[in-house]
């Protein structure tokens, strides 16, 4: 019922009006913004929340007793509650604010990883990870003597699950896996991965950088041990992200950074740690952006993820069909389940050349390796051109991109 209702009320023009940047021109042409997998644009409510915080109640949180500090603290903590509901975490203190997914993964690698890994242990990642879910594990593997194992990717851009099951063993201590690939859009079967990893005695971190904006996230149903979220990819501000972690794991983990807020008592002989979540939030946090993240999540909830996803899926299907009509275009990533990412190469054309010529026609796409060099090597390409769609994009914009693409190819050949 709700789904039908949401679908019938989905009005893309009304949504577009809430995003001021979509009105601007680029090189004299209306902006077509298809770089949403890199960062999403911000609705007016998010921009207003930032301004309002600085204009009305900017204060340092938690320790002040004056009114402004109380208001700022309440707003900051309200975001924690909103995030908790957004991903259905059991406890509010399981929500840790970080600078983003990169910091969330590093936090787990440096605390849980460094404490629990020893020589001979294994960490499993996949062949489609972003560099931010590769490098922290390489660093920690080097410190602990643990080994990194990689689930291979097939020609469609899907994980070869049989290989994953073969890699799993009693040596596996951590599985860190991307929920949806930023380069290909592939949605990975994380539930299956989590269940299998748990049976082998490993904990699982899910990199939700790309999935959170599109898919319904229920960390209790997934039963993941850690889940990482980026605010700026869910229409929120940059510089803020979330690490969800199961309470008992977070409690057992040592702190990541030392400083104010994260302590209970400090003396030169011994310092004791604050309770969750503050143990992991050293120093004055990014208050303004955290406060505005709530506005972003409220905005998504007001539209409804189901309705947005239907629209985005339709855009992806349309874009895929249209791209296939362009001579020389080869789609990279043909997984059965995808978020709205269309990645492609054009025979005999360098992605950078395409990106430049599309930009000159007002079309913003991403070109390059998308911080997934091992994946690009897997496909034997230096990079792709990637169009990624958000709820405010339209079919007409895809038509503009296809026309711009045809023109670019004509110029380049």
């Amino acid at each position, binding site marked *: 019922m709700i789904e039908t209702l949401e679908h019938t009320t989905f009005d893309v023009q009304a949504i577009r009006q809430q995003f001021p940047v979509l009105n601007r021109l680029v*090189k004299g042409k209306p902006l077509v913004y298809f770089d949403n997998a890199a960062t999403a644009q911000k609705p007016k409510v998010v921009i207003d929340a930032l301004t309002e915080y600085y204009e009305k109640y900017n204060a340092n949180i938690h320790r002040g007793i004056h009114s402004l500090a109380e208001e700022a603290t309440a707003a900051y903590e309200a975001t924690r509650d909103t995030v908790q509901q957004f991903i259905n975490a059991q406890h509010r203190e399981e929500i840790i604010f970080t600078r983003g997914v990169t910091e969330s993964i590093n936090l787990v690698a440096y605390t849980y990883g460094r404490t629990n890994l020893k020589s001979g242990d294994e960490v499993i990642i996949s062949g489609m990870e972003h560099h931010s879910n590769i490098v922290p594990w390489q660093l920690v593997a080097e410190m602990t003597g643990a080994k990194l194992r990689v689930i291979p990717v097939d020609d469609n851009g899907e994980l070869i699950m049989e290989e994953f099951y073969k890699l799993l063993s009693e040596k596996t201590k951590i599985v860190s896996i991307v929920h949806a690939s930023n380069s290909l859009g592939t949605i990975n079967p994380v539930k299956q991965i989590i269940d299998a990893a748990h049976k082998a005695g490993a904990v699982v971190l899910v990199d939700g950088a790309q999935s959170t904006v599109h898919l319904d996230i229920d960390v209790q149903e997934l039963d993941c041990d850690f889940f990482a979220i980026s605010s700026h990819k869910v229409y929120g501000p940059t510089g803020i992200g979330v690490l969800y972690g199961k309470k008992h794991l977070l409690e057992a983990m040592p702190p990541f950074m030392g400083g104010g807020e994260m302590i209970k008592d400090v003396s030169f002989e011994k310092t004791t740690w604050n309770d969750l979540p503050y143990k992991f939030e050293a120093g004055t946090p990014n208050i303004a952006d955290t406060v505005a993240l709530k506005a972003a999540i409220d905005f998504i909830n007001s539209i409804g993820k189901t309705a947005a996803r239907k629209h985005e899926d339709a855009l992806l299907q349309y874009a895929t069909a249209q791209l296939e009509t362009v001579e020389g275009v080869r789609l990279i990533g043909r997984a059965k389940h995808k978020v709205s990412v269309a990645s492609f190469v054009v025979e005999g054309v*360098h*992605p*950078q*050349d395409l*990106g*430049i*010529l599309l930009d*000159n026609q007002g079309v913003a796409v991403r*070109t*390059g390796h998308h911080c997934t060099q091992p994946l690009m090597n897997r496909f034997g390409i*230096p*990079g792709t051109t990637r169009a990624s769609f958000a709820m405010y994009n339209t079919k007409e914009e895809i038509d503009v991109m296809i026309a711009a693409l045809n*023109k670019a190819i004509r*110029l*380049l050949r």
Partner: protein
Amino acid sequence: MSDTKPITEIEEEIVDEFSLFDSWDEKYEYIIDMGKKLKPLDDVFKKDENKIKGCQSTVWMVSELQGDKVIYKAESDAVIVKGLVSMLIRVLSNHTPQEIIEAKLDFIDRIGMKQHLAQTRSNGLLSMVKQMKLDATVYLAQLSTKN
């Protein structure tokens, strides 16, 4: 005694050529054409040490001192970059290190290609200019120790 035109004069020529174009696509068509015409670099030079860092595409560049002039050769796997680098070579190559170091290269702005000098990881023109000037500085030092 130099048999090549001064750098500023070559820059002026390029600005004149671009003034014939009204639209962005004509400009890029011209750059792409120059890119396609750039003489390919011998494969022996296409090694890591000749790669210019900071480019999304791969750019190889080599230089040598012939008499008191610096000669540059370059290639890229992206054709627009190749066109841009061919313009830089046309302007800077076959000049003395001192002339190259002092070159302002404001033609890039005047032909509307300033965006390619932006400090992003994807645009390598700035890195190319830096590398060319760095090479010239090295040659200048070599020449001054000889004298």
